[in-house]
């Protein structure tokens, strides 16, 4: 039931096994609508769906010379949808890669291995908590704004009342 309220996760990986396993793993645990892509360009095209999270393979399409690689897609994603969180999948436990990824705005990175799935789950949980925090923060901001407006209104009204009283009271 694809409605406007749906929240999306895009999985972008050219390895079908990895993609399929991750898709199942997430779908069993989260209420996201999951869309899988084998290349980045398709995912970018679907950005109108405003995905919450994109899980992106760092080594995406490294075997296809003219296709964009993971980092290129990451840059495009962050440019086109800055609020979308990107989790990068990488095969190397390499600090330099991780730093690279984070530098371009990825939310976190996951090393492909048996633990990759549970780690992705943790990161998604973190993202949700962050989103909720941001949302409640926004709500509080609105409430505060309303309160301020109300107080200002009351103040103006009381000034008006005092003036009126001033005028209406008989002078001694």
């Amino acid at each position: 039931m694809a409605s406007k309220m749906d929240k999306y996760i895009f999985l972008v990986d050219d390895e079908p096994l990895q993609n399929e396993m991750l898709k199942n793993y997430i779908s069993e645990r989260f209420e996201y609508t999951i869309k899988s892509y084998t290349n980045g360009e398709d995912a970018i095209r679907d950005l109108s769906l405003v995905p919450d999270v994109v899980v992106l393979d760092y080594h995406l399409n490294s075997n296809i010379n003219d296709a964009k690689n993971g980092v290129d897609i990451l840059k495009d994603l962050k440019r086109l949808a800055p609020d979308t969180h990107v989790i990068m999948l990488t095969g190397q436990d390499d600090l330099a890669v991780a730093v690279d990824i984070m530098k371009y705005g990825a939310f976190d990175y996951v090393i492909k291995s048996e633990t990759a799935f549970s780690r992705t789950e943790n990161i998604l949980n973190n993202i949700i908590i962050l989103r909720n925090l941001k949302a409640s923060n926004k709500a509080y901001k609105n409430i505060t704004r309303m309160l301020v407006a109300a107080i200002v209104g009351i103040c103006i009204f009381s000034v008006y009342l005092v003036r009126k009283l001033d005028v209406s009271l008989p002078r001694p």
Partner: protein
Amino acid sequence: MNTERYAVLQGELEMQQDEEKKISILLKMAEEVKNFEVDKALALSDEVITRSQAIGYVAGVGHGLCLRGFCFRLMGKYNEGIDVLKEALTIARKLNNQTIEAVGHYYLGSIYRELGDLANVLTNYDRALVINQEMGDEYYQSVILSNISNLLFDCNDYDGALEYALKCLPIFERVNNVNSLLNIHNTLGNIYFKKEQFDDALKSFQENLKRSEPGTTAYVNAESGVGKVYYKMQHHEAAATHLLNALEKANEQGGVEVRVICTYYLGNLYMDRGDYDTALQYMLTALDVATEYKRRQDLMSIHEKLSDLYEKMGDIHTAFKYIKSFEKLKDEVFKQNVFNELNNLQARQQIELARKEKEVAERAAQLKHKFMANMSHEIRTPMNAIVGMTRLILAKDPRPEHLRYLNAIRMSADNLLVIINDILDFSKIEAGKVTIEHIDFNVREVMQGLHDMLYTKVEEKGIALITETDAAIPQMVVGDPTKVNQILINLAGNAIKFTEKGSVEIRAVLQRADDEQIVIRFDVKDSGIGIAPEYLGTIFDSFTQAGSDITRKFGGTGLGLSISKQLATLMGGDILIESELNKGSTFSAVIVFGRSAVQLEDRKEETLDDEKIQKLRKLKILLVEDNEFNRMVAEDTLQEYLPGISITMAVNGQDAIDQLQQEAFDVVLMDIQMPVMDGLTATKVIRKELTGQAQQVKIIAMTANVLQEDVKEYLAAGMDAYVSKPFHPQELLKKMSEVMTDTMPVGGDIANEPIVPEVAAPPVRVTSMDFIKQFTGGNPDKMKKYTTIFLDNAPKLLAQLDAGLAAADHGTIKIASHSLKPQMTYMGIKEEHSNIAGIEHAADRKDDFAVIGKMIGTLKTVCEQAFREIREQH
């Protein structure tokens, strides 16, 4: 003329039964009268001595002798006095009676004073003063101080004399001892007189007149004093009255000093009045008395006056005679005075110095002791914590990089402990109590250890560290590696400390070698601040650094070099310095070692060539070692030098045999001492009881015992080689390559071709569905879905690998293997079978395609088996 107290004492004497107590009462009585009635005091002293001798009361004799000496002084019998007092001192020392000794010295000093022998005066007074200080007797201290004041008076140091006298005065007033007060006022009067403060002098003498009873010696003394002051104040009438009075009494009492003074001043008085005859009479009397008692100071003045007098009387000849005598005396007295003063100064200085030195030495010793005790506690406690904690962390399976740091900590801490112990035993070095060990050790190991230890330090400072060992230095020498290490750490530590940029070089150079001795010079050269020539001489002194500002800037105790030098000396060597300020220094420790009986083959320093290393990397190693830590070190080292090498662990000999029966290995690295079964036994079992490849396996002993007999035994048991522990990687690699045969590695690759790592012979199953099962929660449909994807996808990637190989494109191989890697993992295919990561690395390193091709071949075999297994499940 008895005082009240005298009467009281007499009464007590009659009441007292105890002879000793009677004697002490007699002494007190004598004490009461000695200043007034010398004869009586002398009689009393005789009585005391006789009675004491009768009952064998030696202390009594001593006291009696002192008293007698005092009396002799008053009577002018100085020589007798000295003899008596010396006798008293002998007794005092025998009895160890401080009171008698102090009194004896005091009286003796007083006699010497009368004789003008100031050096002896001072010696005796000082001795008395020290004893009284020890006894804490303030009163007697003051008495002696007052005498020193008199002494200074004799030395014409009137200011000094006044100072001492005024110090004593309040104490005497507090104690209210009449005699002492009389003495001190007399002294003060004389001092003021000499200082020509006649009013003050008059007051002092008049005070004594008031305090003393007319007719006593003190009174007479005071009267003569008053007289001479009046004379000086030009009150001639009053002067004459007092002087005549005093003279009369003095003639009765036999007081020498008063008689001289009175006659001398009376002579002066009459001379001033123009009555030369009377004046001459008095002067000649004065001369007689003074000559009789050898009072040279007085004689001098008298001679002078007599010369004046005769001149005025017109007897120029006699006047000339006297003036000549005066000159002669003046010379003598002057010389004596100068001599005295010098003596006085010297004696005082010596006494003062000795006292101070003793004090300083005592305090220093105490401080040193305290410091050592504190240090041993304060440093050892935290050091033990550091060492202990490091050991604990080491036992907790740390990560390899942590292991390195922890080992560095442990080594440094251990070294520090050694050094602390040596500092604590610093005194032992000087006492020759430090023992130098004579054990076989490897100089290169020491140098290597030094390098490892200093490396972090040097890296922090951004300077270069170069360590080099002369190839001519034999493998093993006999000496004390700990001490050598200590010296080198100290020298190198200093070098690093004082070098801001540039390098620190440590070189071991063979200086001389014969059949017995090997002399090695360790040069530690830095490009640091250098040492100024003026400090070069003192740099080895304890607690000395090149200038105090060095300590502030660089810290340190300044003990290190001193210890190092002494250690080097103990090892038959020395430490030499060459240094130039701001250019750097070279410290050379020359140490004499013995020739070692342990024969290790000379190590060829050349490292193994690449081809051999590549071969070694393919070997299958069985590491047999019971110590977990050593296992880790060995494994890490091998992995570092031979990446990808296959190492299997066994924890003892039995375990090793079991594993050899199951699997084929190329080389066994065998520890000797192990529980359950030791390495030697295991080797014998392998050679005798096992069959086939296992029996033929190459065995390298890893052992700390490298004595020749041991080595022979190992080889006889069937071992192929040995390495000393802790092993040097290069040495181990060399040994491994030596035992390596053309048939290695197991699996039979041809030696001349690039060798592919022989993966473990494929086991029955290569796949495992454990992960997928757990991932899917055991759902067979899902499991099948994934395995199907794998079966579909993996062959594509394998095809890509082939394509990459065909196109000789490392990049393609790398990407494909990278993609394949996680998938293999999910299917439970182990790296040791697939070596997929190895392929990725090889492609990344752009290894030879022949090698990669072999690896891919193996991979494909494994994958085919995996596909079969998975399909079987479907």
